[in-house]
């Protein structure tokens, strides 16, 4: 049954991918990329990867689409038409694809429980982690505890990317160009947005509350710092979309925002250092408390919080720098 649903969704996915390639309207491309991500997230759910589906839905369909649209509003919405296919590129893509298809014939079949990937460390994680770490969600325990180093590295990549975006887009442009979110603010358009405003006033606190639930429930169900951060940022982005950028910036001033970007990463690394000073190894949380699982819980809570703060503030400040940029 699940294989059948999987096939249908993959067929949809191919149609959308081809349509994304063929359309010359960049706006339609961005919208269809959002659909593509939603479909991909559905497929991840069918393939049991609920945590990944969570992230893909929030990041791919939410933040990514918003960023693409913000870029298009700053540049152009149509691609220049080329009336011929690029045969060289097509041949290269086909050749690479052919070689890869040839390679798949040695791959273990889909869903095979004896595939090499399931023989190495994965059985250990599955068998031991619920008792050793004391967290039912195995993805969280692998992410935060067994592979804490990786996650620290990835959090710093996000931090670095945020710095790069800020360096590229933060400097004020000469000439007072208006930003995409500062549309006409006359009486009539305020009236028009009334329903949206009232509804979002009720809705945004619920989004933020839900983000906190995802953050702290990540040990027991799908969720965790990455997902919660993105959802929190999505709430703030919705506020900025409805009420304008200036009001959103008044709520979270840029200097506090940028401070929190660094604070999240420091909290993560600081947890690692704390365990180092309490007679453990770097990021060995069991040193943090007298009882091993208690220490693990504390460590996972702290580093997930660090990840959540960094991701939320990075996404928010990337969005602010894109939408605060004047139109050319």
């Amino acid at each position, binding site marked *: *049954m*699940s294989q059948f*649903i999987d096939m*249908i969704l993959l067929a*949809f996915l191919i*149609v*959308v991918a081809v*349509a994304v390639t063929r359309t010359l*309207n960049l*706006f*339609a491309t961005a*919208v*269809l990329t*959002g*659909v593509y991500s*939603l*479909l991909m*997230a*559905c497929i991840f*759910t*069918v393939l049991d990867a*609920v945590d990944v*589906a*969570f992230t893909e*839905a*929030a990041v791919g*369909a*939410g933040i990514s*689409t*918003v960023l693409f*649209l*913000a870029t*298009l*509003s700053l540049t152009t*919405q149509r691609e220049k038409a080329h009336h011929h296919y690029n045969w060289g590129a097509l041949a290269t893509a086909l050749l690479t694809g052919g070689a890869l298809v040839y390679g798949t014939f040695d791959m273990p079949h889909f869903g095979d429980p004896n595939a090499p990937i399931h023989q190495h460390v994965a059985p250990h994680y599955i068998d031991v982690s619920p008792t050793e770490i004391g967290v039912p969600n195995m993805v969280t325990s692998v992410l935060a505890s067994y592979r804490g180093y990786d996650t620290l590295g990835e959090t710093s990549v996000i931090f670095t990317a945020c710095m790069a975006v800020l360096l590229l887009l933060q400097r004020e442009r000469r000439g007072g160009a208006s930003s*995409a*979110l500062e*549309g006409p603010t006359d009486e009539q358009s305020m009236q028009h947005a009334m329903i*949206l405003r009232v509804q979002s006033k009720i*809705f945004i606190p619920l*989004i933020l509350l*839900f983000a906190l*639930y*995802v953050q702290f*429930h990540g040990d027991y*169900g*799908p*969720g965790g710092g990455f*997902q919660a951060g993105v*959802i929190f940022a*999505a709430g703030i*982005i*919705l506020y900025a*979309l*409805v009420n304008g950028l200036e009001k959103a910036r008044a709520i979270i001033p840029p200097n506090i925002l940028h401070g929190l970007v660094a604070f999240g990463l420091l909290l993560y690394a600081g947890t690692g250092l704390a365990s180092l000073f309490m007679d453990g190894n770097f990021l060995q949380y069991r040193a943090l408390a007298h009882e091993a699982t208690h220490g693990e819980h504390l460590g996972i809570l702290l580093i997930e919080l660090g990840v959540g703060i960094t991701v939320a503030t990075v996404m928010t400040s990337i969005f602010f720098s894109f939408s605060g940029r004047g139109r050319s």
Partner: protein
Amino acid sequence: MFVAAMIGVLVTMLLALIRALLGPTVYDRILAVNMFGTKTVLFISVLGYLMGRPEFLDLALVYVLINFIGTIAILKFVRFGPVEAS
């Protein structure tokens, strides 16, 4: 029983997808994409029951939120010029 609901949802997703690909105006696309998003919410909810593990409904909740934010973002960032077939 869940299979019937699942088939209904999948068929609706297909129809909305076709409209999103056809256009013809930008607004038709946005409408179809919004509808596609709400159908993915139903898809995730029904899938949980179909597979016998319905506790992952948090996922569907995220889809509702993201779908709404996406639609509002699309509307805010499009430059509303004269309507053209796109």
